[in-house]
């Protein structure tokens, strides 16, 4: 607050205020290209001018919808759990490195982060397929009988989604590990605490906000996933996004598609609101 007042004093409100014109083009653009399309989805979801809640009622009454909504929550929760379990050791390891080495190792996290989701999905179809690398190794070692079905099912979706989500969680957890005061650790060491004790009583509890932020971000991202379940999942194991696509492309039922989309945006919005409370700056995972 003090900083805020001082800045006002430094150059006067007039000069500072008038710079706000630079925000106007982007605000107008977002109004026209982002807000209006969303309002159209909302309008379509209530059947346009007929204004009915029938399409929302279907979300809870039709078994297909209930199954898909439940699938979506389940898949998101499991992949979030897996993501945190994979991401924590990586973030912990990165936090312990000297800055130069950390920057180098960070490339191993940044590269998959900036790699197209299609490249990853393609790689996993090759890796997990009937004649894929994993099955080749299994059959070479254990014979034909060891062949397992790894593609077009739930585990494939979870593997693909976890791979997509881990970098986001690493950034979030790493930020909270690096923000810890090293003096605390030193103090605990001097007073004779062992490594395990320091980790479980100091490092881990202090990093929990970062873990929570990473988990919330994973939930938000995974609930809206489209490509991974479409390419790696089984035909019967749809997520909300795939059902929206199905309605737009196959049944041309835009009202149902819109009701599903609004449902999705409300749920992810709730998680985003939680996230903004835990860590306001973390909404855009791409910035560390």
């Amino acid at each position, binding site marked *: 607050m003090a900083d805020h007042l001082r800045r006002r004093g430094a150059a006067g409100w007039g000069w500072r205020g008038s710079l706000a014109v630079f925000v106007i083009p982007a605000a107008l653009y977002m109004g026209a290209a982002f807000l209006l399309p969303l309002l159209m989805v909302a309008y379509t979801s209530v059947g346009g001018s007929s204004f009915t809640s029938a399409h929302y009622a279907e979300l809870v009454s039709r078994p297909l919808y209930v199954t898909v909504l439940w699938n979506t929550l389940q898949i998101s929760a499991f992949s979030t759990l897996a993501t945190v379990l994979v991401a924590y050791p990586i973030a912990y390891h990165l936090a312990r490195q000297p800055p130069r080495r950390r920057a180098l190792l960070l490339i191993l996290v940044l590269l998959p982060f900036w790699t197209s989701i299609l490249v990853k999905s393609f790689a996993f179809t*090759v890796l997990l397929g009937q004649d894929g690398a994993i099955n080749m190794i299994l059959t070479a070692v254990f014979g034909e009988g060891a062949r397992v079905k790894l593609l077009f099912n739930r585990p494939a979706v979870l593997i693909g989604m976890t791979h997509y989500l881990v970098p986001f969680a690493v950034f979030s957890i790493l930020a909270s590990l690096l923000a810890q005061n090293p003096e605390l650790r030193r103090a605990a060491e001097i007073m004779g605490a062992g490594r395990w004790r320091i980790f479980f009583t100091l490092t881990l509890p202090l990093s929990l906000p970062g873990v929570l932020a990473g988990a919330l971000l994973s939930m938000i991202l995974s609930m809206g996933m489209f490509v991974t379940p479409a390419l790696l999942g089984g035909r019967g194991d749809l997520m909300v996004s795939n059902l929206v696509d199905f309605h737009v492309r196959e049944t041309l039922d835009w009202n149902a598609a819109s009701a599903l989309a609004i449902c999705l945006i409300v749920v992810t919005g709730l998680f985003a609101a939680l996230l903004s409370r835990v860590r306001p700056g973390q909404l855009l995972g791409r910035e560390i």
Partner: protein
Amino acid sequence: MARRRSSPLSLAAAGAAWLGYAFLALPSLIIIPMSFSNSDELSFPPHSISLYLYDKYFFESNWMAATLESLEVATGTAILSLLLGVGAAYGLSRAEFPAKRLITMFLLSPAFVPAIVLALGLYLYLGVAHLSGTTTGLIISHTLVAVPFVIVTAMAGLRHVDRHLEIAANVMGAGRLLVLRRITLPLLRPTILAAALFAFLISFDEVVISYFIAGVRTQTLPVKMYSAIHWEISPVLAAVSTLLTLLSLGICFVVALVRKDR
């Protein structure tokens, strides 16, 4: 120090971390060798090394058309989102005005609205505006996804531009546009380059919205890849994927270099 490092906890942690790194690197590790296969059947490891799949990508079928469409859309998106995003970031970080927090949240919100919701909205909206299936429609849509990232990147960059320089120039009589042109923008150049690359890559990789709104003639590379994985799993995908991975790697390096200068 050496004795402390080898404590069981650190060893276990390092082991788990390296397993994690390996998991993350897995797709790139498998795709790059596969792209040098010489047959139309996917095989890992490839039986012999050739550039057959790259040759197919560059000279056969319509892969190149999709790539050119993506290049066009990504370039347009980078330019438009820079104009909107850097401007907005400048206003947001240098001006004080009512409801600033709300407006900031609004401008960043496309980043955490699920892509499928944006895709459906733009599908309905661009249909009404007679822009679905056009390159313009694709640029409009991708820009809306890229702007939040440009804003965040540019705001981070603006925090590193010494405000006293701007104030000093202003005190010495430079108007606000002159300050922007001669002081702020030159100091912001590395950030703008990084933001442009981010916007380009976001557009170049965008698939969900494009899948909904691209037409037969405006099929982008990701849309073509999506259908290729969905319907046939063409081996050319290995070559395309390798090239895309190299592109991401290149952009990562450039951004890392730019950040270092700051």
